[in-house]
């Protein structure tokens, strides 16, 4: 029993030191003030835009070794913001996200493939309302370069736009789509600015 504790503590110490060592190589910190998960959906004729105010993530990326990359995102559904509180509340209801039951949207990569130029296909599992789906995010990687405003830091960017069928992910039953009010196709824009110490 005592030995298990010692092993546990030793493993913790190793992980604690391993994290900064990894950071020096490929770990990037998401600059949350300049990153977000946006979505656009058609409402009858116009486009309604929204984003999520609360999210976190892990970005491990080295263009020289894309196979060793890792992208993990977690978005708090309750932080949805479309600029109309009542609409946000409706989106959180069982009609769409059922945020009381399913609090997060997550994405965890399981492979990164270079697609030429600065485009990388990030394949992973996208979990919505407790169910996981395969999803590929074709990220455009920009940078890295010295951060123009933060000394001693490097900055890079990841941007991707994908269009998904929300009904295929269980976000809504289709009644508002059938009514011709809320479209089923949702354009998602993931725009990340990431930083690391030089």
């Amino acid at each position, binding site marked *: 029993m005592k030995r298990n504790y010692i092993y546990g503590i030793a493993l913790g110490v190793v992980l604690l030191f391993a994290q900064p060592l990894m950071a020096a190589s490929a770990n990037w910190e998401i600059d949350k003030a300049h990153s977000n998960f946006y979505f656009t959906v058609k409402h009858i004729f116009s486009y309604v835009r929204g984003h999520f105010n609360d999210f976190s993530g892990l970005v491990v990326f080295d263009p020289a070794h894309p196979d060793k990359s890792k992208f993990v995102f977690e978005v708090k559904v309750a932080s949805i913001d479309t600029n109309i*509180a*009542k609409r*946000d*509340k*409706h989106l*959180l*209801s*069982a*009609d769409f996200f059922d*945020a*009381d*039951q399913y609090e997060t949207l997550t994405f965890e990569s399981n492979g990164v493939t270079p697609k030429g130029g600065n485009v990388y296909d990030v394949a992973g599992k996208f979990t919505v309302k407790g169910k996981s789906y395969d999803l590929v995010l074709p990220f455009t990687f920009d940078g890295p370069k010295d951060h123009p405003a933060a000394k001693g830091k490097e900055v890079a960017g990841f941007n991707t736009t994908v269009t998904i069928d929300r009904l295929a992910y269980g976000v809504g039953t289709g*009644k*508002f789509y059938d009514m011709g*009010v809320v479209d089923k196709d949702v354009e998602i824009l993931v725009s990340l600015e990431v930083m690391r110490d030089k």
Partner: protein
Amino acid sequence: MAQQKRWVYLKNILLTGLIWLFFALALGLAMAIPFLYPTQTLWYKIGSDKVLLQAGHVAGLLALVLLFSQLFLGLRPQPLLATMGIGRVMRLHRANGVLLLGLALAHVGLVILPEGLANLPVGWKYWPELIGAILLGCLAITVLTAKFRDALHLPYRFWRGLHKMGAYLMFLLALAHVLFVSDAFHSGVLQKGLLVCGLVIAVIIGVMKGNRRAAGK
């Protein structure tokens, strides 16, 4: 002298009739508004949810009319006193208060039910709903302290001051709640109508209070 008395009596009857007519009109309008000017929330409700939400809106607007009339009754308008007597006017004031609280509770229940209890509007983002919650709290305190003033051993003058202050506070809270919580009142005829109503009621109350002060009551 007798003719003058008869004229005053007729005038009071006429004014009382007018007051009741305005009251009935206001109630009718309150019941019609959710159907004539449905909020956008109703666009996304179907079946029983739509019926419940619409009933909630009707209950809320009826409560608003009763709240406005409650202020008026509390000032004991002369025509009503002359035709109904102070006892009846005060009984009406008390019954109106209880009915008002009942409608306000029904409004909250009927509006929340179709949205689901798991999806309550909590947080600063929903400040107009928060004003509604504060209003409901004030209303409950006002009605309960009036009903159980003796049991609560509240000194009359203290209670009266609280009751009056609460009434004016609730008037402002109700205006703010309706104007900002419902998109039907965000612009156009309903917004302007409610603002004019609020202003007219404020002026009437001001004039009535001025007259009462001048008469030394």
